[in-house]
């Protein structure tokens, strides 16, 4: 096991996922890669106040139609 893997497995254990780490460590490694590739496929977003920075909430989607 690489030291990087050891670190994140330990972090997961400290967060309460001991059983998961003990029984399914291979699945965890693969899931970490999936998460990393997912975030890489998101479009670049630069952070400006003149852009929609609000977090999506259900009520906001209806503004154009119902108000």
């Amino acid at each position, binding site marked *: 096991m690489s030291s990087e893997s050891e670190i994140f497995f330990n972090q*997961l254990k400290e967060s*309460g*996922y*001991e*059983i*998961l780490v003990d*029984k*399914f460590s291979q*699945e*965890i490694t*693969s*899931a*970490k890669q*999936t*998460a*990393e590739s*997912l*975030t890489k*496929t*998101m*479009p670049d*977003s630069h952070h400006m106040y003149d*852009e*929609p*920075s*609000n*977090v*999506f*909430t*259900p*009520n906001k*989607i*209806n503004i*154009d*139609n*119902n108000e």
Partner: protein
Amino acid sequence: MNDLHWLTIKEASEEIHSGTLSPVEYTQALISRTEQLDPKLNAYIKFTPERALADAKRAEEAILKNKSLTTMTGIPFGLKDIIDVVGFETTAHSKILIDNMPKSNAYVTDKLDSSGGILMGKLALHEFAIGGPAFDLPFPPARNPWNINHHPGGSSSGSGSAVGSGMLPAALGTDTGGSVRNPATSCGIIGMKATYGRVSKAGVVPLSFSLDHVGPMTRTVEDNAILLNAIAGYDKNDPSTEKNQILPDFTEFLHKGVKGLRIGLIRHFYTTDLKADVEMCKAIDDAADTFRKLGAIVEEIHVSPLSHFSSCNSIIMYCEALSIHDQWYKTRPEDYSKATRTRLMPGLFIKGEDYVNAQRTRTKLTQEINNQFKNFDLIMTASSMETACRIDEPETVARTYPRQARTVFNITGHPACAIPTGLATNGLPLGFQIAGPYFDESTIYQAAWAYEKENPFNNKQTDIK
């Protein structure tokens, strides 16, 4: 008369109201159909014929007394087993919730009950609406009625299988990343994910709070509108439902036609971003030509790449789902199927900033689709990129499941409906998707009905025996 099990809701309702069909006789026919087919299809987790016959007798008495009848009076339906019904466990197809007995009905259960519908049972799904098809669960996975060696789509797999096989005329599913529309396309039926906020989710086991929808699944467009009529509306117990929504009769404008309707066709989703297989691509393009022939104006439009929508959906879903499953995930990870456990796991590695950025991206993508509705009445695109693959090939399932364009409208909350077009050379259904502006399911049904009249899929029935 048709075989009773192939009657549409509309046909059965007309016969029930006129007294030529008894709800008990109709229910009994569907019970027989289910007893014959379900051992092969596994669409049901809990089949409840005794309750169905009791409900049918009550419907029959109501008809004899001419009590307030609705189109759903005497019509059997099934519920995906994440929707609560008092007296029956809501298992979510999982060992985790195997003894989960709800204390009250879901809002949609009450709505169907009060409309006179007849509950036939609880239907199979992908575990917790995310992990499947899986063979390491307490219940077997549902199968495709067009070929039982293939999956029926998911996660509302039992709903698709039961309606597509003629075991039921109506079922409810839920849709977080396409889980009503995927089984609809895979099983050759109509599946509507209405506007976020149109239908209450109170009493439904959540997967992802801001992406989940409850949706109707039927064999015809008209039936789907009838079923949405029965379940739509504000519910004080679900704060995401829209209080000020206008509730039309969704069947009212079905016959209006599409002449002059402007339809934006997002072709790059299935020709460039993902490449649909040849038959699926042709089916969607042919559907666009059908709309043109019927007088609609269909123009190709371009929006952000499909991967932006699907990644955004996945990041939000993984985080929200893990927040729901966290305690079970820490204490009972071995009680999930492998499919569910591995699908929930990326949520452990998505950081707070990624979730916030996904939500910001969601707002931008939503505005982008909204802007298209300034110029177009409807948008059409692919649902799936190919027909359903074999159920016993997990690698093919894993490869083909993400090849779809449905998450777009979970991200934006717009209503979207899957419509079948015909059968591929392998004998499995093909289909496409139409989306509309917020709270305008009526125009989607109007277009879908016109298409269905021109190209009726409902006259194609599975020969499963």
